[in-house]
């Protein structure tokens, strides 16, 4: 199965953020989106996740299990800047909710909640309210959320922003495990993810010529 984008462009308000972006990610591959601040990395990821409308172009899943999904978004996990966990609930309640609510999509199965917490090195604090955790721990628990329900595509927006070196290495291990089980990943980041050789997409940031109508 492949995640294919052709000639994508998107705008926010009046401004065209990027234009004519194409990529093709296969199983076991990671595409790392790089570029300076404001170059549209987050926007690209949100467009792929179906959270922002695209101006033109198309995104599709091709081949194999890719046919089974109604929408591209339905095949994706999205790890954004925010963790999508409730401070008032315990970590376990949070993870259980997402496991039950998201469910597994075709081609794989999520791991058990305690296993996922162990995988991010925080198995001992499942019973704590999420709000008690430090920023780094919260981020790691948000990553455990990726494991509890199976999605072939991981869309990761600055996944390692609040993490120390050890946790970064841990996260690289998680992504590798995901790739080896037939997944693929699309990540935006400044830091190297420690994944070894990956494809890179450089977002150049956009010149003002898009706004020529108003300039």
């Amino acid at each position, binding site marked *: 199965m492949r995640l294919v984008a052709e000639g994508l462009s998107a705008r926010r308000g009046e401004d065209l953020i990027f234009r004519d972006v194409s990529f093709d990610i296969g199983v076991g591959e990671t595409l790392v989106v790089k570029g300076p601040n404001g170059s549209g990395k987050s926007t690209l990821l949100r467009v792929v996740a179906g959270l922002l409308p695209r101006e033109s172009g198309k995104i599709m899943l091709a081949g194999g299990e890719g046919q089974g999904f109604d929408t591209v978004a339905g095949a994706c996990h999205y790890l954004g800047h925010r963790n999508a966990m409730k401070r008032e609930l315990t970590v376990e309640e949070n993870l259980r909710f997402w496991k039950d609510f998201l469910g597994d999509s075709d081609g794989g199965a999520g791991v058990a909640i305690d296993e996922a917490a162990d995988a991010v090195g925080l198995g*001992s604090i499942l019973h704590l309210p999420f709000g008690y955790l430090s920023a780094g721990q919260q981020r790691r628990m948000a990553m455990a959320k990726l494991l509890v329900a199976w999605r072939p595509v991981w869309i990761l927006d600055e996944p390692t922003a609040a993490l120390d070196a050890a946790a970064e290495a841990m996260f690289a*291990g998680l992504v590798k495990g995901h790739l080896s089980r037939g997944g693929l990943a699309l990540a935006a980041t400044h830091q190297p993810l420690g994944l070894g050789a990956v494809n890179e997409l450089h977002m150049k940031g956009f010149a003002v010529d898009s706004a020529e109508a108003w300039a």
Partner: protein
Amino acid sequence: MSEQSLAIRKFSDLANPTRFLALSGAVWPWMAAATALFFAVGLYLCFATVGDYQQGETVRIMYVHVPAAWLSMMCYSVMALSALGTLVWRHPLADVSAKTAAPIGACFTFIALVTGSLWGKPMWGTWWVWDARLTSVFVLFLMYLGLIALNRAVDDPARAAKVGAILILVGFVNIPIIKFSVDWWNTLHQPASVIRLDGPAIDPEFLRPLLVMAIAFTLLFFTLHIVAMRNEILRRRVSTLRRLAARSAGRGTSGPVPAGVGEGHP
């Protein structure tokens, strides 16, 4: 009990809450027993005495209604004292006391309101009138609920304690209003008949069960308050320990973690 053995393990740094836990743990079963005893005697007296020639059987409602109403005001006074303790002396237990008294006070006020209504219907022909006494007690009830809501809305106990204490003290003006409302305004509600300067204006026949019930309710309040305070101390201890647990968790995972899921952490 496990927390008691915890409490006396190290004698040198017994914090106040710890000492309170040990002390209250020894005291509250006795208080509970005394409460049960007084209630047994009080309830027996309630139904052994004859009815009033004017009010008939309904006079028996008084034995519940009047003590509950007293307690609703006394509980607020306890909370006001605790609020002073929080703001002036910064006593660590004062805030625990104020916070835990609120639900208990709300329950007693609720009992006073309900039994009052059930007494008013046969006597006055209506469940409720908006006179000074009844209205001020209802306002007291709302204030209790508001304080509970405030405590629930702020999740940091130290911050909730200060604002809660200020609100309690501001609300204290309501207590004298309740107490003297029956004297200041002419209302349906009868004036105070037990605590008066010229001695009780109530037949000793009724006074005896009323006093026993009042003592029983007061004991009940203090028993519940102490046990609830113990719970609150434990709750705060749990939350401190949880923060401790969160801080210490994940320290052991320095160094690279193997790739597979579930193998990362021994």
